[in-house]
């Protein structure tokens, strides 16, 4: 049970300001309320009431009872004034019998209650009890709201770039909680100068409890990491805590709630061995981008979050991160919003970063249904600039999906529109047409239109060079021929062969081939 302080109730006698110009009525109210333990301050006019509030802090009062008709001002004038000074302080308005229009107006302006004169004592006491309770409740809510906002500011501050990163790594973070504070959090834990650990968490819910659970796990994670506990052991320990302790609490069982779950991912980065060890429990897969812009998923998606199953299998995968690069990472709030917008999460992340750099807020963030956290972790290497070529999309298509190419192209267009809104119609046309040709070519020749084969498409943007680089790869063996000699013959003799290649060569500003042409790399100067 809450004590009076926790409940927002005063521990002193409740103080009531009575504003009444009629001396008989004023005395009646004073004596009646004093007899019930209230501390009453009677005044005759609105001006005197305002002076009283100017002399004392408003939060020393628990309620105001004001007559409507007074010589200098009305009770509604006072009510309006009080709402600007302390919107939490409840006011009861006294009206004459049958003055319904005044009652309506009083309630519209936020009066806690109204009483008709002559005042009935029982009704007065009931109204006063309700009004003082309302004041206490409103003040408690205001304090909670302020505390949540403070928490939200603290979370944002803690996740600012250059705050937590240590060792040879640095990071950039975009964090947009759905409410003031959220359950998404990214922590950095330097282990040695060469080894760095990052923890990304996303707790179900957007409330203070979610923020607390997230922070609690980060604390446990840090503590166990300092004791050199292996990452799977730390995850297993917290899973057990959620399953066996937290989600078994009486409160949750009474509410028949499914309990708290925590999507989490950990990255252990070793710059000396150039390896990244990854654990994923219900969290999106991080994407590693090498300095030349090639993207690679660090692990496989899927798997339940912590807190669902007691016998959760926690696996670590190890990946090469040789030569530096960047790791892009996000929580599912970003993935969900990207899906709703029909764009790739990497593209949305890029747009968020761009907006953040310009101190703008993307309007589509208003449509987010969850906390959004995105992080870029930069892995510097000698003589290599990282993070300049940023991926906008990475897609895999089945080899037999050529009939869906219009939908793919529509998605590429949405991504381009979001990431590069100033792109000219002509360049957009050339990019989309060249991508279309390359993908259809890869499906037809590289995959022989077989469903089990995959065409991989990636687009990355170089911010300084204003260059879009697109990779289209198929699993085929490629095809080598002399394009320059072929092109004249194709045009003159009106033959169909290699016409797609002619498109690609003419639309892109530069084209490179790898693996005998099974990988096409197109560059577009924007």
């Amino acid at each position, binding site marked *: 049970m809450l004590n009076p302080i926790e409940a927002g109730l005063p521990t002193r006698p409740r103080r009531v300001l009575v504003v009444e110009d009629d001396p008989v009525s004023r005395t009646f109210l004073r004596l009646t309320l004093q007899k019930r333990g209230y501390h009453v301050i009677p005044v005759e006019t609105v001006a005197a009431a305002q002076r009283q509030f100017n002399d004392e802090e408003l939060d020393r009062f628990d309620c105001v009872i004001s007559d409507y008709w007074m010589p200098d001002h009305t009770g509604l004038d006072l009510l309006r004034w009080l709402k600007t000074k302390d919107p939490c302080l409840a006011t009861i308005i006294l009206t004459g019998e049958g003055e319904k229009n005044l009652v309506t107006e009083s309630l519209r302006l936020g009066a806690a209650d109204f009483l008709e004169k002559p005042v009935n004592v029982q009704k007065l006491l009931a109204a006063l009890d309700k009004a003082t309770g309302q004041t206490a409740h409103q003040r408690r809510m205001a304090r909670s709201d302020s505390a949540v906002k403070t928490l939200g500011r603290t979370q944002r501050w803690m996740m600012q770039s250059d705050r937590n990163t240590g060792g040879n790594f640095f990071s950039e973070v975009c964090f947009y909680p759905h409410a003031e504070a959220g359950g998404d959090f990214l922590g950095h834990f330097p282990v040695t100068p060469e080894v760095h650990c990052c923890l990304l968490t996303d707790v179900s819910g957007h409330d203070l409890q979610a923020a607390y659970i997230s922070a609690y796990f980060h604390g446990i994670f840090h503590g166990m990491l300092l004791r050199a506990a292996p990452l799977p052991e730390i995850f297993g320990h917290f899973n057990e805590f959620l399953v066996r302790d937290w989600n078994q609490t009486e409160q949750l069982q009474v509410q028949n709630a499914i309990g708290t779950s925590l999507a989490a991912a950990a990255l252990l980065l070793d710059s000396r061995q150039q390896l990244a060890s990854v654990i994923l429990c219900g969290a999106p897969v991080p994407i590693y981008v090498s300095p030349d812009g090639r993207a690679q998923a660090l692990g496989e998606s899927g798997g339940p979050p912590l807190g669902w199953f007691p016998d959760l299998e926690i696996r670590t995968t190890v990946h090469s991160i040789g030569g530096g690069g960047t790791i892009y990472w996000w929580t599912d709030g970003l993935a969900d919003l990207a899906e709703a917008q029909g764009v790739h999460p990497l593209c949305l992340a890029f747009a968020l970063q761009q907006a953040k750099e310009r101190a703008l807020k993307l309007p589509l963030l208003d449509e987010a249904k969850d906390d959004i956290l995105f992080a870029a972790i930069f892995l510097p290497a000698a003589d290599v600039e990282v993070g300049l070529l940023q991926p906008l999309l990475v897609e895999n298509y089945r080899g037999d999906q050529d*009939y869906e190419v219009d939908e793919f192209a529509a998605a590429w267009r949405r991504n381009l529109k979001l990431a590069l809104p100033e792109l000219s119609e002509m360049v957009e*046309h050339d990019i*989309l047409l060249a991508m279309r*040709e390359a993908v259809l070519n890869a499906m037809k020749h590289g995959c022989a239109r077989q469903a089990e084969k995959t065409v991989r498409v990636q687009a990355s943007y170089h911010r300084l060079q204003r260059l879009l680089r697109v990779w289209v790869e198929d699993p085929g063996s490629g095809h080598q021929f002399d394009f320059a000699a072929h092109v004249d013959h194709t045009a003159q003799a009106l033959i169909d062969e290699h016409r797609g290649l002619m*498109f690609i060569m*003419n639309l892109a500003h530069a084209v490179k081939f790898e693996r005998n042409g099974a990988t096409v790399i197109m560059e577009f100067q924007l």
Partner: protein
Amino acid sequence: MKTYLDPKTGILTVTLKGDLVSTAADQVRGQMTALLETPTSPDATWKLFRLDLVTAKMVDSVGLNFIITILKAVQKNGAKMQILYTNQNVHRTFLFTRLDQHIELVKI
């Protein structure tokens, strides 16, 4: 796909709606083949095949091959071919594939 034969001028106009890309070409290929292979009566002979691509904003390689298939059939009929377009990107595509050397391009 809409067709209109003007008997006075001998112009057969075929209008395609939207982009002429792989998926769209596949949808009208059968109709177009039937149109070009159907023998015409002597009083309804066309001398100019006009392909109306005024609403197209994109023509891909499959669409271009489709045009060339039409061109070959038109030439076999002893007629000429003309393309109507408005979009500048479509025009650029015709230029870099050198289609302008074989077909009259008319900007609307």
